[in-house]
């Protein structure tokens, strides 16, 4: 039963929480605001918050000068591609672990988790050299493959925790009625598994979109996603705050929106089901 809370207490907490939340959010807000300023206004002292001449010229210039949409589509292909590829491989595995568990299932899951603990620099050099020699350096398919591998443990774990919540009796009943394995999956499992699969897809798109170790090291220009594109602003010429802000806003907006829809899944996915 909820307790009655005094209005004064509630107002106090409201004020404190809003101030802190706005402070934490401020760098993002400031980036968005700056993206609508001219370069001169972006570095004006004292800085202006809202009362400046709003302009869209930075967005036009970022697109014209460095072809934002190319990098955007690279990000889309890489994050969607690696997630769907991973899903294809992980669904059967998670299905098997959830519905035909053996004594070893837990061990296999823990082992998969442990592969995430290997620092990426341990694999960087061979992967870089193999990619260089096979022409996969700066290619989207190469990155799709690598990001699929690094997110595979998370995808398997997430699907496993979702699948385990599907009552096994239903599957048994279907099996008794003579449903084949294929039918079991398409007619019974799939409809019940869709929400869990959707959550998994959402979280992994976000993770792949923001992945910055492999994307920075394995791409240069042709296949460069937004992470690499933004990094090119680290050694700029002349005034560039407004353009940096416009590019940044466009790079983070899609996942910011996706992310807000996936708060709950984030907790489950990133804690490997340990916290729900």
């Amino acid at each position, binding site marked *: 039963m909820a*307790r009655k*809370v005094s209005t004064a207490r*509630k107002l106090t*907490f*409201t004020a*404190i*929480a*809003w101030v*802190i*939340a706005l402070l*934490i*959010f401020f*760098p*993002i807000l*400031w980036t968005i605001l*700056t993206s609508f300023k001219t370069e001169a206004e972006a570095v004006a*002292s004292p*800085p202006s918050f809202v009362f400046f001449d709003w302009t869209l010229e930075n967005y036009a210039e970022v697109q014209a000068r460095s072809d934002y949409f190319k990098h955007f589509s690279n990000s889309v292909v890489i994050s969607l591609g690696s997630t769907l590829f991973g899903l294809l491989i*992980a669904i*059967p*595995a998670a*299905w*098997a672990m959830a519905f*035909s568990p*053996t004594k070893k299932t837990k061990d*296999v899951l823990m082992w*998969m988790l442990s*592969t995430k*603990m*290997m*620092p*990426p*620099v*341990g694999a960087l*050099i*061979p*992967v870089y*050299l193999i990619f260089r020699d096979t022409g996969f350096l700066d290619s989207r398919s190469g990155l799709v493959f690598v990001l699929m*591998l690094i997110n595979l443990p998370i995808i398997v774990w997430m699907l496993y925790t979702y699948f385990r919540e599907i009552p096994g009796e239903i599957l048994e009943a279907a099996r008794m009625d003579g449903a084949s394995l294929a039918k079991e999956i398409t007619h019974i499992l799939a409809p019940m598994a869709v929400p869990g699969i959707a959550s998994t897809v959402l979280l992994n798109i976000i993770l792949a979109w923001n992945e*910055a170790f492999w994307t920075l090291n394995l791409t240069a220009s042709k296949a460069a996603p937004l*992470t*690499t594109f*933004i*990094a090119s602003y*680290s050694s700029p010429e002349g005034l560039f*705050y407004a353009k*940096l802000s416009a590019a*940044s806003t466009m*790079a983070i907006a899609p*996942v*910011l929106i996706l*992310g*807000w829809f996936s*708060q709950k899944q*984030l*907790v489950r996915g*990133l*804690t490997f089901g*340990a*916290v729900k």
Partner: protein
Amino acid sequence: MATLHTRSHARLMMAPSVLLLLGWMIVPLAMTIYFSFLRYNLLMPGMEEYAGLMNYRFFLTDPAFFTALANTLILTGGVLLITVIGGILMALLLDQPMFGQGIVRILVIAPFFVMPTVSALVWKNMFMNPVNGLFAALAKSVGLAPLDWLAEVPLLSIILIVAWQWLPFATLILLTALQSLDEEQKEAAEMDGAGFFSRFIYIVLPHMARAITVVILIQTIFLLSVFAEILVTTNGGPGIQTTNITYLVYAQALLQFDIGGASAGGIVAVVLANIVAFFLMRMIGKNLEA
């Protein structure tokens, strides 16, 4: 109950995932180990030769290694300290009754979705820049000399940037744990006259212990390998003041083309990560049962 038939099916279904991950774990690692015993520089192709433990000797006696090791630990520890304590406080705050809780939550979580290169560049230029940054404007407005953050306190600056990115993660997970706490238990303690602090120490904190260990474990995995934030802000500098192990290996391989030396560094990084993982797994082993 699983029949032999379904069991072989199950094995077949798990095979692609297991084989791919096994390959991903073994092939690069084996190659890194192999390279680490070679004198191998990309600028001198065809000159590769067996070098014994030379690469390890050079890497481990290089003063840069100890600086990088210390930086890695300070960076990881500093961010963990800020995010865990900050996350507990934020979770306690967000758990209170308030107006617009949903929006507050959304605002607090947002930094987690910002890609590392964006957050690092925004902080570097628009906040920490000594001429045009907002911190400089703030300092000047109260009559202080602006601080050149990334030149004067580079490691601290990177800790702050990375902590900003991970605070939402800690907050979100600790809040989820906090909200699963039985209200009646808290009320009972309150009626027995327990104050806020004793309620926190004896009821709330033990309840959150599992979530806290999960936060520490997962963040440590990612924090040991911080890379993009360093690359776009300081390039490991000034000097090597912000070079961590990951960045040191990257610089040796892709900037100096010393594949042999960098591979030895990569193996050292793997060993260090395994030592940390071993202790973490033991520490949280009990906590994660149940």
